[in-house]
């Protein structure tokens, strides 16, 4: 994707919004003030009805589409979905990407300076939840003059936020896109998350979360966490197809160095990630995943928990996703039906595992485009001005190690 791409939203500019009104968190703590960084694409229409909020997953951020003028190669993580003529069509919709609180891409997070102490928050940064994020996002919508979202969309942890929007603010969202998500993590998922956290907290450079003061980063722990996560975001079949048992050399070395291509790939991905991501953010994001469970307050009855929602739901899963498998999505659909919600559900035949939600898949993108077009009718945004064009082939996301992006 280059700046010549007519389907790109073009050069994106990160913006910043400060909030002085304290945010009372689910954990009982209070964030006295905070900042959110965000980007917007397209134009907010006169009646402010065409806004679509994109919620990010574990490692995502506010740079959802387009590129940066100073760094044209830094393309947004969901650029294949958002732009003129793309499924979420910026000719007609005003799209907002936001970095969540606790993140490490500019919004207030563990690495930010705590005004009270003049030091980075570190371990003192409160644990935030999906509900807290949605509350903070709603304040950003207030700031932007958006009373009601046309939609909120997200995959994985982002899908949980889209669902939470429909629960926290039933009158402020028309449609929730809950993609490759679950209404609560499985035991196995919590287990994976804890192994990742243990990898981080047991790194001597973690310093109990206050590694900033020690001018250290727990890169080994973060790398391991990422390696583990990365394996689970991809399917066995895909790993086999991409790497097989291929060795970097011709023969076994009978030692413990990197030998198989998959080892090399994972270590590379882990190293790259550890350089740019914050270990405390990783801990916080995985906890937010673990805690999400809207049915907890209704004795496990998700249908009852969904009662107040008014949004239409677009739910979709990917057959090869074993981290958030179709069965988890079907649970949500069952509950949505039981509570008589408007719901569309598709099970996408993609081989990429959990990461499939980020990748080009013509059928998946056509479904979103069709659903988005229905929303356009609903809000009177008219037909597409740029015809829908889809990427011709499945993205070869691992064609180079540097191209790897992974988003749970």
């Amino acid at each position, binding site marked *: 994707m280059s700046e010549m791409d007519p389907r790109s939203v073009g050069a994106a500019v990160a913006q910043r919004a400060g909030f002085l009104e304290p945010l009372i968190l689910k954990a009982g703590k209070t964030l006295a003030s905070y900042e959110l960084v965000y980007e917007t694409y397209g134009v907010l229409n006169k009646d402010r009805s065409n806004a679509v909020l994109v919620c990010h997953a574990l490692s995502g951020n506010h740079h959802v589409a387009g590129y940066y003028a100073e760094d044209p190669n830094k393309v947004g993580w969901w650029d294949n979905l958002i732009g003129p003529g793309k499924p979420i069509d910026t000719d007609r919709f005003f799209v907002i990407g936001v970095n969540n609180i606790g993140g490490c891409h500019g919004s207030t997070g563990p690495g930010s300076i705590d005004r009270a102490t003049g030091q980075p928050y570190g371990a003192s940064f409160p644990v935030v939840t999906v509900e807290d994020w949605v509350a903070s996002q709603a304040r950003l919508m207030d700031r932007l003059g958006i009373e009601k979202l046309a939609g909120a969309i997200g995959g994985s942890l982002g899908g949980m936020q889209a669902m939470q929007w429909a629960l926290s603010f039933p009158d402020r969202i028309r449609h929730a896109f809950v993609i490759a998500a679950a209404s609560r993590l499985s035991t196995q998922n919590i287990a994976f998350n804890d192994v990742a956290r243990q990898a981080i907290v047991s790194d001597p450079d973690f310093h109990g979360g206050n590694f900033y003061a020690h001018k250290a980063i727990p890169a080994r722990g973060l790398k391991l966490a990422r390696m583990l996560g990365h394996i689970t975001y991809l399917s066995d079949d895909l790993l086999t197809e991409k790497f097989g048992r291929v060795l970097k050399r011709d023969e076994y070395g009978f030692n413990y160095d990197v030998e198989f291509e998959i080892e090399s790939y994972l270590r590379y991905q882990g190293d790259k990630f550890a350089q740019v991501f914050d270990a405390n953010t990783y801990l916080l994001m995985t906890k937010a995943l673990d805690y999400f469970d809207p049915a907890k307050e209704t004795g496990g009855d998700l249908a009852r928990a969904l009662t107040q929602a008014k949004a239409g739901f677009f739910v979709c899963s990917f057959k090869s996703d074993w981290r958030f498998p179709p069965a988890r999505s*079907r649970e949500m*659909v*069952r509950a949505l*039906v*039981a509570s008589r919600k*408007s*719901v*569309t*559900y*598709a*099970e996408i*035949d993609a081989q990429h595992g959990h990461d499939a939600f980020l990748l080009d898949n013509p*059928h998946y993108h*056509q*479904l979103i485009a*069709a*659903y988005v*077009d*229905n929303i356009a*009718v609903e809000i009177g945004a008219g037909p597409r001005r740029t015809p829908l064009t889809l990427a011709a082939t499945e993205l070869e996301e691992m064609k180079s190690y540097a191209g790897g992006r992974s988003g749970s």
Partner: protein
Amino acid sequence: MMQRYDYELIQSWIPERSRVLDLGCGDGVLLAGLAATNAASGYGIEIDDANVLASVKNGVNVIQDDIERGLSAFGDNTFDFVILSQTLQAMKNAERVLNEMLRVGREGIVTFPNFGYWRHRLDILRGHMPVSKTLPHQWYDTPNIHLCTVKDFEDLCVRVGAQILDERVIHGGRTVNVLPNLFGSLGVFRFRRKPS
């Protein structure tokens, strides 16, 4: 796409604001029509990718699933009507699907190509499996694995405890009243669970 005479009949049977489940909803036009003319609401179940997309384009709430897996997503008596239009003959276990329809809906509507239609019988007499407007596939390449006659379906209704409320056999858009199992090509049944 052939003209769906059964759709008109179904539309005439469904009162306004009914909650409808359409099993094997195809491109969703029946549900879209019911929503537009009868203010009906509900869901379509569809297994095929292209049909799911077509249903979304038609503005229908479609859920991608396999009817054969059962309707476990739906509680008892969730719907006013459960419709199975020209899909019965492709089911592996038609009896089970019928039982599930009786469970989740107050009433069921089933339409199917009548294997007893005289042209079909004639084809058999001539020594071949029938190929017709309602059964357009060759025997070796057909989704239709459980073909039945109008009389066979009546028998199945008795077996599963369904009370037939209305039964039409139509051909070319008209109800056939004389020897319907011989002269009608499309069976359209409306039934409910027999009151116990």
